[in-house]
């Protein structure tokens, strides 16, 4: 768990702009991403959440004391996955392995509120959890020309691309 190199969304986007553009399009289009977290007993949990990029950080607000938020406070390891709608969704799967960091800075929380309000005309007014996702690796998998196209980016290893028969 220690020692994993993590970066912000902005750092990832600077290093791999084309891959980040695909991810951004997916996140904005579906508005909902799925977050995989770990329950207290170590078994997996899936939760749909709304996600925004706020001043270069990938963030998600969660209801106060919700189970998924408590999961992430206990163990920050998580995966953020954009939604796909059918087997051969042309845009493919975009997934980010990350560490969720609890955002307590009032300025950052306020900026999140502004970005959220600009998108959906609503922002939380009471207590809520806010997480910033620090990125460990990004994977994009899509199908085209009857091949499976796999792209992976890590802060240490850069971009790796592979084309395989499905």
């Amino acid at each position: 768990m220690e020692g994993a190199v993590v970066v912000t969304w902005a750092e990832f986007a600077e290093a791999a702009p084309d891959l980040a553009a695909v991810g951004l399009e997916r996140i904005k289009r579906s508005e909902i991403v799925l977050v995989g977290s770990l329950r207290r007993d170590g078994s997996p949990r899936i939760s749909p959440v709304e996600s925004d990029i706020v001043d270069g950080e990938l963030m998600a607000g969660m209801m106060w004391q919700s189970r998924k938020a408590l999961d992430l406070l206990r163990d920050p390891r998580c995966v953020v996955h954009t939604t796909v709608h059918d087997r051969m969704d042309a845009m493919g799967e975009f997934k980010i392995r990350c560490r969720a960091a609890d955002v307590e800075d009032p300025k950052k929380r306020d900026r999140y509120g502004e970005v959220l309000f600009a998108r959906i005309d609503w922002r939380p007014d009471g207590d809520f959890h806010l997480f910033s996702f620090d990125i460990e690796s990004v994977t994009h998998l899509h199908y085209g020309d009857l091949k499976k196209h796999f792209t992976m980016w890590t802060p240490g290893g850069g971009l790796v691309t592979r084309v395989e028969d499905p």
Partner: protein
Amino acid sequence: MVSWTEFAEAEPEMAARGLEHLKIPIAYFATVRKDGSPRLHPLSPLFADGRLFVSITASAPRRHDLMRNRRYSLHTLPPDLGPDYDEFEFNVTGSARRVTDTATWDAVSDAEQARGRPRLNDDDWLFELDIEMVLTTVWKHEMVKTGDQWFPKAGVVPQPTRRVWKAP
């Protein structure tokens, strides 16, 4: 832990709506990786003989996840937006069990073929999903039409209606 049929007998309404959504046909499946972190991927759940299954291709490293830690979580995606849109989530949690007997294998393959989909490959790994808990969440939105698309009305966040069923 129970099979899908036992759940459906106990909670027919939840099961009927869940089945509709599980057949979309993509759902999300979470497992635990070797290092203990969560893994998430889309797949098509399989049904045969009133039992719920998933198959994992022989080349996927995730097939080993369930041999080390049988715990899974299966989650449906919200339906497409439309005038009667309800944001409906269906979540199943439990333990997966690898199945290798020919009768079950054939039953799953036959059921898939009947739905117009490919039969299992010989080297696929087939798991039956035993069910411990089912959770449904419905967010009833007020829908508005913009152009030819329906969207949830902005500025309104509905309260979710949740229902939990736990296997006896």
